[in-house]
């Protein structure tokens, strides 16, 4: 797999973001992780000037999407991603406060691939990834596994 690993975390709550980053980092999965704090920023990441600046075809391999976001909420972000052919196939994992949340069902209808109940701990992350058939993500992230020769994001 020669593609650059890139995970986009869309999360406005800094404490939740920190907990997520910590869980992933401990399993060395956070090296190519971009963190944005609102829905508009997430849309800009895909469709804004920054996206245009990126080399063609470099889409993130996974999006972790919180639903309650400032500016544009998570459901709207998801809807727009699924409406554009470029982002149609990008796997999206929805972050939710409760598995009983009515929103979870709705996001499935909108095209979410899976969901994780917060706080995002590595165990439930790996479970969701496994469901998506992206187990290579986990292998890549295993401590001591072969890793791309890119610099680790500074903590």
């Amino acid at each position, binding site marked *: 797999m020669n593609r650059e690993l890139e995970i986009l975390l869309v999360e406005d709550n800094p404490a939740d973001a920190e*907990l997520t980053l910590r869980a992933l980092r401990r399993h060395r999965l956070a090296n190519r992780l971009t963190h944005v704090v609102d829905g508009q920023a997430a849309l800009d990441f895909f469709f804004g000037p920054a996206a245009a600046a990126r080399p063609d075809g470099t889409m993130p391999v996974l999006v972790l999407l919180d639903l309650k976001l400032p500016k544009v909420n998570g459901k709207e972000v998801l809807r727009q991603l699924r409406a554009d052919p470029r982002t149609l196939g990008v796997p999206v994992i929805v972050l939710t*406060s409760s598995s009983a949340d009515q929103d979870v069902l709705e996001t499935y209808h909108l095209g979410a691939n899976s969901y994780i109940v917060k706080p995002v701990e590595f165990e439930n992350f790996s479970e969701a990834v496994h469901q998506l058939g992206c187990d290579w993500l986990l292998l890549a992230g295993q401590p001591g596994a072969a890793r791309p020769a890119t610099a680790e994001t500074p903590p």
Partner: protein
Amino acid sequence: MRVFPDMPIRHKLRVAFLGTILGALLLACGAFVIYDVISFRRSLVNNLVVITDALGKISTATLRFAHETEAARADAEETLGALSFKPSVLACALYTEDGALFASYVKPGSTIPVPETPASDGSRFENKQLVVFRPVILNGKRIGTIHLRSTLDELNQHFESYVVISALVFSNVSLLAFALSAALRHLILHPILTLAEATRKITGQRDYSLRVPETTKDETGMLAHAFNQMLEGIQQRESALHSANEALRETEERLNFALNKSHTGGWELDLATHEVERTPEHDRIFGYETLRDRWTYAMFLNHVVPDDREDLDHRFQEAAANRSEWSFECRIRRTDGEERWIWGVAEYQTDEEDSHPSMAGIIQDITGRKLAEQEIRDLNTSLEQRVRERTAQLAAANQELEAFSYSVSHDLRAPLRAVDGFSRMVIEDYGGRLDEEGRRMLGVVRSETQRMGRLIDDLLSFSRLGRQAMQIEDIDMQAMAREVFDELVAQEPPDRKIRLELGPLPPARGTATMIRQVWVNVIGNAIKFTQGRDPAEIEIGTATGDSGEPVYYVKDNGAGFDMRFADKLFGVFQRLHSAEEFPGTGVGLALVQRIIHRHGGRIWAEGEVNRGATFHFTLPHPPS
């Protein structure tokens, strides 16, 4: 002149009877008299002819010698004079051959002389006298003529006596006939008169139970019999007519009673004249205390308020033209000026010849009903308004609740996650620098935040229940209870001994996921509160409720509860045991009660401290 035909029968009979008898008698007497007079006259003539001939015979000798002697004449006259013994002979004469008077005798006192010459032979009546001329024959040779004249006294006397006898016979026979006729008349007339009298009585008294005696077997008897049969028939018909009339009268009375008591006016409108026959109630409805002399369709229309008039009239004309039913509701202005609502219905009626078409119907004052209807409409309108307002308020409240739930599930959880997550981070990153007590305290922080997370979860599911859609379906309660029990027991420590008695449970109807939640909580409680019982005993069964519906129950031999706090069992966050004794959030039974209530059922509990508890619930939806 119709004297005879109009006469009473008894007179007719008398006239007929007497007339016949007396007529016949008269005829017979007349015939006898005439016959007798004729034969008497003949015999009188014969007598006289014989006497004459005898005298002639006697006189032949004298007559032969008539020309010779005077003595012969005297002799002849003496012979003729012998006739004086017969007083009826008035005169007698003897003539010679050549027609000369020879001898004569004239009754003394008689003035009529004998004729000088003889007339022709024979006998004839002249001037109420009999005159005879006879030839006098000797040796076959005529030698003279003899003449005799006689009175008819003898004949007259005979005739007179005959008339007297006849009159006597006639009068006696008449008397006899009269008496006989009276007797016969009674015999014939009596039955007829009885019949006549009976008919007179029946006509007068109209008493058809009277009968005519049937005494004879003749025509009058037959007549009487036929008359009696006719009476029988009339009596039967009369009685049938009477009972029919009685029934009709009763029906009419009932009808009138119904009409009066229901304040219904009856009327019949003649479609040709538009005149209306009514009951007094009809006029009362229009405000008249007593029945008016006359009422017409136009008068009715005048009472109808102008706004309703045209439509009403249109519908009336239509019904009359189509010969259909005419029903209406309209406002009228009563004679006292008050406006009232009336209702009416009528039917087209006509006779067999279709000569008298009419509309017959009823009317009622329905003002009270109309007012009540209006009141109900007003009430309904305001009720609908209130329902709309309440619904709007409820919808707003629901929306607020939803926003609240959302806020709870998202915003309230976020700080909890942070507390829990960062406590763990402290333990992971700085655990080495803390002593045992510090780590324990952080452990308490973590477990309490996790408990709060569960509380929030329970509360959320409780509030969501109200919004969850019902999907009523058949549920096998026994299988469901068994399944839930097995699942829950599997989570218990393997060394627990729990004995289950699961009676046959009738099926129910409800939303399966919700009913399952009921079993999970109720059976779960039974398992939880029997901790420490050896063995724990749980009984699941049914009883029959007051209205025959099944009452499901779950009974245990666990910790039980104090009945004083029974009302708190089903309150949210209400707990009767400490969290250390039995863990729990206090939402479970509140959730169960909410599910049962949403299904229209009831739930209640009985218990005693340390002696177990029983939870009962009903689900009124019967299986389809």
